[in-house]
């Protein structure tokens, strides 16, 4: 049954979503594309839409994929799957977690896990750049895309621009650019 498949796939992803969720974008893509739920190009679209909404990008992408596969019920199944692992962990460990957080074994695991998660997030960025054709064989488009990416990074690092403002203004620039070229 498709709803159960969605729930199980996103439950599995939920268990591993360390690092606030961005790191899970490649994992969600792998699962969704392998299940034949969405094409890689359509997944890139869903990440763009996910970025426009409040809430964690990975969770939003999960909702989008769930909706595309099985409507509102699919979106609910994906959301429950994605959020249940963390809720269960809180209920099971919530009270003792204070004490074990600084235990040497736990600290060692996180020492090693953190750089792995960073690599996942940076890979998610590169992967999205390719899937959304930001970087492609079209040299002219790629140059424009990379210049816009550098502008976006400067705005985020030095001007602390709100993510939604960034996305909306870049969307308007894209429409204007398309209109000028036509």
């Amino acid at each position, binding site marked *: 049954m498709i709803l159960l498949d969605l729930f199980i796939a996103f439950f599995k992803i939920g268990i591993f979503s360390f690092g606030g969720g961005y790191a899970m*974008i490649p994992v969600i893509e792998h699962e969704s594309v392998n299940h034949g739920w969405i094409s890689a190009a359509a997944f890139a679209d869903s990440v763009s839409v996910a970025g426009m909404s409040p809430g*964690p990008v990975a969770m939003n992408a999960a909702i989008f994929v769930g909706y595309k596969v099985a409507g509102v019920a699919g979106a609910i199944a994906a959301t429950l799957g994605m959020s249940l692992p963390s809720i269960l962990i809180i209920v099971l460990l919530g009270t003792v977690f204070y004490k074990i957080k600084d235990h040497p074994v736990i600290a060692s695991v996180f020492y090693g896990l953190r750089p792995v998660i*960073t690599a996942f997030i940076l890979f998610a960025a590169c992967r999205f750049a390719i899937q959304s054709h930001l970087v492609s064989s079209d040299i002219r488009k790629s140059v424009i895309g990379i210049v816009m990416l550098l502008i976006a990074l400067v705005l985020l690092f030095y001007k602390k621009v709100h993510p939604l403002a960034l996305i909306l203004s870049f969307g308007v620039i894209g429409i204007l650019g398309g209109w000028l070229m036509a």
Partner: protein
Amino acid sequence: MQQGISLKALWQLFFAFCKISPVTFGGGYAIIPSLEEAMVNRYRWCKRDEILDVLSIAQTIPGSVALNAAAFIGYRVAGIPGVLAASIGMLLPTFLIVLVLAVFFIGIKDMPQVRWALFGIAPAVVGLIMFAGLRTIKSSVEDIVCLFLMIGTFLLLLLTNLNPIIILILGGTLGGVLGWIKYKKNEKNKPENDIKRHSADQ
């Protein structure tokens, strides 16, 4: 666990997190100020310094920081019913917003203007994800071992078709073992260093 959890407390949890939820743009960190305002000043569910503990736990366990923080506070205020009230409160608004966007988007996605808008949005989204990743480097890459772990993981993701979850488990296990070796080495060296320093002082 608290006795006689009132329905009022559950509603308060639900509404408090409903209001915080739409603020959580681009990862969970944006919620910290509004979380503090509601939890500490308004409802007095926790003290100011406890917010830091809540956040450090929320960042450590899997899942989104915002949802974890909500579930944890819900648990402390009203046990398992509190977890449910707070989590649903946190999830519902963004769920509805994404759903509306998804329905709307699927209807218009092939219009040329939409394709152009997405072409403009792509660098912004890549920038947001990179920004999130680059910001974690400061706390995640402590030494050269971490740097190699990061680069190795990145190359595995880029060059192989392995299931990313396998890569995560492999990398996390290897990193954990290396972290443990580092911890043991530090522990062995520590007393010696102290002794050396002592003798140098004398």
